[in-house]
């Protein structure tokens, strides 16, 4: 059992960490919201693995449903919903390269 738990945790850890990085570096905001929802999805499964079904259920309800609902509505109101948003693109590491942002 512990062997199985280890493999599940390993796959979930890889999934969560890579999508957390993706949520911060991907250019499109909607894709970032999708990646952040993947983080909380893996978190819910990990909570269930840790014998915390209450917390897993809360995380599932809040992280999968409500959080992406709030963020998606906010993106629509912020006007950042475009699939190919030209001027609103932002990257995590573009803070210092000011010319690229202003272009």
């Amino acid at each position, binding site marked *: 059992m512990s062997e199985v738990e*280890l493999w599940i945790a390993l796959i979930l850890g890889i999934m969560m960490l890579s999508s*957390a990085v993706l949520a*911060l570096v991907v250019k499109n905001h909607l894709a970032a919201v999708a990646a952040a929802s993947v983080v909380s999805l893996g978190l819910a499964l990990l909570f269930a693995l*840790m014998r915390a079904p209450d917390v897993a259920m809360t995380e599932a309800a809040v992280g999968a449903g409500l959080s992406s609902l709030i963020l998606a509505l*906010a993106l629509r109101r*912020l006007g950042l919903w475009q699939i190919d948003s030209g001027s609103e693109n932002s990257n*995590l590491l573009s803070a210092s390269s000011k010319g690229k942002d202003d272009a």
Partner: protein
Amino acid sequence: MIPGVTLELILYVTALGLVIIGLAGVVLSSHLFRMVLALVIAEAGANLMLVLSGYRWDAVAPILMQRAEQPAMVDPVPQAMVLTAIVIGVGIQALAVSILIRIRQRYGNLKRREVAEKMDAEIAASAGIRRDISQDAPLGERPLSPLPAHTAESRGGDA
């Protein structure tokens, strides 16, 4: 199985990695919306960390079932705390998002640097002072407290 890799290590690395990625995102991101996402990720890592502190080997969920003998249960107190933290987290997230909407309405942009500049200019204007000290990171040598004679010169240089 890879030697040396235990369940404990994987879980702690995941939780700490989420916290670190989130905080690095808060520090490094140039867009305010990404800051909110980074905060959400950091909060996820912190919640995982709390739940891990209540884990127990070979235990069952803290819910009494109709069983003959009651096996060991994990600690219910951290789970109750995380339950509270998640719900509060979503409230804070909604508040942050609505503040972002107001910022966007007011300044027309969400880039951290531009919003900060506009906000500084507005504060300086409403306070009636000149905004002659650079708000950016220090570039090279600059006098610690600019003398009145030098300020005019440096402002002219900046403009």
